[in-house]
């Protein structure tokens, strides 16, 4: 393939490349990267499946079925808080781990390291992107839930705090995996952990429906802390002081995961 004269000649004549360096303002860089991350997530079919399709299918399916007995009251009241927990797990953990793993594999993280966007700026952008996608997920799940008859009770501030701390915790765990494993291994592990925690991690299925032998250990997983915490608030009408236990579990997992990820993360 050759370049025609018009293509070569028309643009950027003598002096056009004279140095005029300078970084954009930090806030603009972070917002630009946030938009880029959100765009990439929404364009990716598999990630949409994990973050939107599966949670909404579970919400609609489990609230209509009597296959699983979930206790007294309308099933949707017990299912919806768990689906919110699953939304956080899918976006902050699975989707972020997979995207970051492949960004490293394709040298995108390395190339970003040469731009004016600092590592702090990149992490800020990734966090904002996760939060932005979650806001969309929560809006959709709450909207569909209402349409299906969900009438949540309890303290919304407590629920939001659980969601935020859960996001921090699962983001750090996702980056921990992506920073250590190869991209394909990250893909496999992040998906497998998603399914395991969905089924047996007390995310959607309440802890007291799990075999007693499992429940004691599962209780200490971040998925259980988030799922049980949200059910305590939104289903049982609890407030902040009723979920101090789950908040503490999320905090400990989060702090440990951040510390390990910061030490082990490889950018290339």
């Amino acid at each position, binding site marked *: *393939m*050759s*370049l025609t004269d018009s*293509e*070569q000649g*028309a*643009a*950027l004549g*003598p*002096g*056009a*490349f*004279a*140095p*005029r*360096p*300078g*970084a*954009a303002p930090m806030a*603009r*860089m972070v917002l*630009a*990267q946030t938009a*880029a991350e959100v765009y*990439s997530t929404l*364009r*990716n079919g598999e990630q949409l499946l994990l973050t939107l399709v599966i949670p909404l299918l579970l919400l609609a399916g489990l609230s209509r079925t009597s296959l699983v007995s979930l206790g007294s009251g309308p099933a949707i009241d017990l299912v919806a808080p768990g689906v919110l927990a699953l939304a956080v797990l899918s976006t902050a953990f699975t989707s972020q781990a997979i995207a970051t793993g492949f*960004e490293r*594999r*394709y*040298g*995108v993280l*390395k*190339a970003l*390291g*040469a*731009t*004016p*966007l*600092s590592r702090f700026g990149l992490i800020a952008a990734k966090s904002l992107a996760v939060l932005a996608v979650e806001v969309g997920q929560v809006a959709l799940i709450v909207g569909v839930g209402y349409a299906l008859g969900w009438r949540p009770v309890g303290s919304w501030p407590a629920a939001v705090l659980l969601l935020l701390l859960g996001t921090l915790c699962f983001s750090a765990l996702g980056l921990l995996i992506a920073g250590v494993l190869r991209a394909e291994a990250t893909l496999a592990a992040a998906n497998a952990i998603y399914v395991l925690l969905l089924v047996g991690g007390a995310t959607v299925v309440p802890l007291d429906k799990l075999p007693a032998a499992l429940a004691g250990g599962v209780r200490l997983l971040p998925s259980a802390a988030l799922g049980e915490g949200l059910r305590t608030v939104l289903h049982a009408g609890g407030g902040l002081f009723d979920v101090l236990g789950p908040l503490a579990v999320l905090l400990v997992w989060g702090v440990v995961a951040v510390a390990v990820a910061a030490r082990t993360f490889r950018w*290339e």
Partner: protein
Amino acid sequence: MAPTLTGVSGFAVEVEDLHVRFGTVRAVDGVSVQFPAAGVCAVLGPNGAGKTTLIETCEGYRRPHRGRVRVLGRDPVADARELRPRVGVMLQEGGVWPALAAGPALHRVARFYRDPLPVDSLMERLGLSRLGGRTFRRMSGGEKQRVKLAAAIIGRPELVFLDEPTAGMDPQARLAVWDLIRQLRDDGVSVVLTTHLMDEAEQLADEVVIVDRGRVVATGSPSGLTSRYDEVLTFRASAGLDTALLQAALPDGCVVVEDPPGSYRVEGTVDPALLAAVAAWCAEHGVLATALTTGRRSLEDVFLDLTGRALR
């Protein structure tokens, strides 16, 4: 023209006694070089010579185990925040999200700079406009290289590091990129590139640094490097001629070498008398010399002499 804000020394890059190791491998083993500002410097060397490690240390990706690196007068690791807007980087491998087309990929990078080059003009200049929505994944090697090159210069840097910028390009694209690199220099940008193409170094570079096994084996301008050696006369004949005998028959100061077998090189003052003397000696000994040429040694000859001919 905007002033070029280089280090006080006038060098874009200064490397002093640099050592970089990976485990026990000494990728860079005591390198000292200076790359001039507002010029094109080519780092040449065989695969595995340490070119990329040297460049990536200047880019701040690697920390020296020993020695000192200054880029635009600053420390590439400690002063990264200040240097990143001023230095453009084109990596040898990857760097672009494969699902993006050239336009969106370049817009993403442009938004990090205060006053980026216009994306459309840059794409037009590099022949990327015609690719339309083709994603990076589906581009040819040369097209990918041009996207990465555009990303490296979009922030109007003072200095660019280009790691094998024309790898995988067809001749037309290569000429277009050479033309762009010359304009960068003329516009006051310092360019450091790695290559293993001799003609690329000869065409573009003001300064050539030849690296082998983690060390600098030669530096100088392309013409300086080639003229440092005497002119040569080369010919081919059957292997195993007595070179000492031939040398004795030639004017004083001539040196005859057979390398590889069957290829003979006579170094010295190449003039009609030398040519006649070689021809006479061959006639006398019943040797038919073929491919007899005279001239200055090419950069490739210099390179192969310095780094060896054996495949590795």
